[in-house]
């Protein structure tokens, strides 16, 4: 299924955006159908993950990361001490979501090799965010191919919060799984 273009997604409003969330559940991940190198073309969109992060979920991430900075969960402190619009979505959580998304896309026999991105914009509890990604290049190597992706994470207003780029190793159709432990092609 082709993901809805992000420009179109942003016209739907926060509730409409959530209807296009393609985040797989655990069972779907367990039975993931492999995306092969040959399946991917330059210009393709990656699956669309759409989330709305509640204040309790931000607090849960604080607990998970043992990050007790009050700007993530104490609204009065965020407003009155830090002069912020609300309790803020964590940069580390953005990292986690992006890594999961690229890992999910390469399962079961591919490998999310590397990525880099910036954390921009303040995202507060109850905002809706969407991951977007587009294939910009692909290269063949001996035992696997590498797909290069540019991506980002926009909120419901289209404010870009995590512009970045990634490389994902995918197996060839009929070939072997990407070797584990993974060895980069230029190593």
């Amino acid at each position, binding site marked *: 299924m082709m993901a809805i273009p992000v420009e179109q997604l942003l016209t739907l*409003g*926060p509730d409409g955006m959530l209807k296009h969330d393609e985040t797989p559940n655990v069972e779907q991940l367990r039975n993931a159908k492999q995306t092969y190198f040959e399946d991917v073309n330059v210009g393709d969109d990656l699956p669309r993950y759409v989330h709305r992060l509640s204040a309790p979920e931000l607090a849960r991430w604080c607990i998970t990361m043992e990050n007790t900075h009050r700007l993530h969960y104490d609204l*009065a402190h965020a*407003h*009155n*001490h830090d*002069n912020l*619009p609300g309790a803020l979505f964590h940069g580390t959580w953005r990292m986690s979501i992006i890594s999961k998304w690229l890992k999910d896309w390469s399962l079961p026999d591919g490998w999310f090799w590397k990525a880099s991105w910036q954390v921009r914009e303040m995202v*507060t509890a109850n*905002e809706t965010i969407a991951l977007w990604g587009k294939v910009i290049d692909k290269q063949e190597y001996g035992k696997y191919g590498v797909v290069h992706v540019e991506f980002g994470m926009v*909120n*419901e*207003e289209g404010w870009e919060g995590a512009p970045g780029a990634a490389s994902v190793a995918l197996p060839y159709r009929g070939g072997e799984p990407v070797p584990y432990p993974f060895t980069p092609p230029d190593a």
Partner: protein
Amino acid sequence: MPRYIAIADKPGLTAEAFSEALDRTGKWRFAKRAWIVKAYCVLDPGKLVIECEAQDKRQFTEWLDANGWSTPDVQRVDFVQEAGEVWPMRS
């Protein structure tokens, strides 16, 4: 950033109009460095109390005007008490 408070009398104010003015991020965070912190609505007799943080008071008054909530009563806040703590507002 400075905090401002606006007090406006708006007879005929409706729940729909209040919600519509603030129902998504781009409306309550109306500029990169300007946002509504909290807004109170009293339907009868029609009163609004709105807190805003903005670099410039004019950003807030323009937002009020755009929503039909113009008021001469826009003041800069010096202190806020919330949840048992008194917070000095930054300039």
